[in-house]
């Protein structure tokens, strides 16, 4: 008697696990002794299954059984939708290795931080005080007209971040009436360039700012009194100059 033959009774009784069961079934096909024994025992075994008394079946049983079977099935269908979502989630997960997933998360975090700080600094910019303007050059302006001997002032070239400005500050110039206006001229190699117009206030002082291009240079500044504001060449008399 082989070792495998020992399992005959357990096989009949259904107490073997799947692996042992399959192994014994294979054995049974080729072991004559077991086959003979099996046939002999299975008659009584099958007779045993009728060793019970007839029972009255409860009337509610059918409904309970079918509710259970088809209720279970519906549950299974419901879970298949859930399962599908799960599968979808898992397959999405599979697209990312832990490394790439963490890289994506890190990059996302960095981007968020940078975006946030960028937005923050953009918000702060108007409130941050301007870089102190740096005076690159200053010119003393003096009266060029005997009638206005008190006239004088300063011209500054101011570097403010990337823009260069000419600031002209004069005083002692009477406030002009009507269309008359003070005009600032930049002299370079005998050429005159209109640098803007201004008027003075009641106390005789006035300010003009003029944006200079990066490479713009000039030799002298002159301020004239012009009859109106649209001149390209000075027509009036010079009152102040450098």
């Amino acid at each position, binding site marked *: 008697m082989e070792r495998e033959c020992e399992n005959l009774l357990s096989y009949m009784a259904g107490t073997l696990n799947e692996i042992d069961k399959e192994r014994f079934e294979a054995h049974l096909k080729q072991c004559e002794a077991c086959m003979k024994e099996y046939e002999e025992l299975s008659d009584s075994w099958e007779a045993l299954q009728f*060793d019970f008394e007839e029972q009255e079946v409860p009337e509610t049983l059918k409904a309970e059984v079918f509710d259970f079977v088809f209720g279970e099935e519906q549950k299974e269908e419901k879970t298949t939708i859930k399962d599908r979502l799960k599968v979808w989630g898992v397959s999405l997960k599979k697209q990312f290795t832990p490394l790439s997933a963490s890289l994506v998360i890190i990059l996302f975090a960095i981007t968020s931080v940078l975006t946030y700080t960028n937005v923050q600094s953009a918000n702060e910019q108007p409130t941050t005080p301007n870089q102190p303007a740096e005076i690159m050059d200053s010119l003393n302006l003096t009266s060029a007209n005997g009638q206005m001997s008190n006239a004088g002032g300063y011209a500054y070239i101011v570097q403010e971040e990337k823009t260069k400005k000419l600031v002209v500050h004069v005083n002692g110039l009477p406030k002009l009436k009507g269309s008359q206006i003070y005009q600032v001229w930049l002299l370079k190699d005998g050429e005159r360039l209109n640098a803007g117009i201004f008027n003075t206030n009641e106390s005789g002082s006035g300010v003009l700012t003029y944006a200079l291009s990066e490479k713009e240079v000039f030799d002298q500044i002159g301020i004239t009194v012009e009859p109106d504001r649209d001149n390209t060449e000075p027509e009036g008399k010079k009152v102040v100059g450098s």
Partner: protein
Amino acid sequence: MKEKTDAELINLVNQKYRPALEEIYERYIKLIYSYVYKFSNGNEEAAKEIVQLTFLRLWTTKSSYDPSKGKFINWLLTIVRSVCIDHIRKEKKHALPNHHYDTDRTLDMADPEDQLEEMLQDTEISKAKNRLSATQRRLINLLYWQGYSLTEIAEMENAPVGTIKSRLHQSLKQLKKHLELEGS
């Protein structure tokens, strides 16, 4: 459905045709329920659960009945018994922490078991079974109706597995002889 054979019904059930499963129910519920009732030792609630699980297994099983391999009833009851075994094994796992408890339960059940046997005296199998010794009957019941493994029975009976095995072989062979005598 009424004119279909059992094998045809199972084929239809395999194809998920619900009326076929209902027809199986109509034809065999008395057999199945009575069998399960005995297996669950007269516990109606457990019997109901097992019947439900049996029909769920019939509905979801991939295996079909092959008439050349024996009677439909044997095929059916093999499935029913396997559901019973699974069920009581699961219950045991949940409820019983050790084998001593198993032994106690078996002793407790000895009385109702005897009463039931008295009621079964009319049938051929019970007559044949009654000719066996009390020990032989007990061993057969432990193995067939209570689903214990040979190792478990050996522990309960305080005997080596080999001894239990040969006693059972012998008991079943003797039962067969008695059955043949009863039948003739």
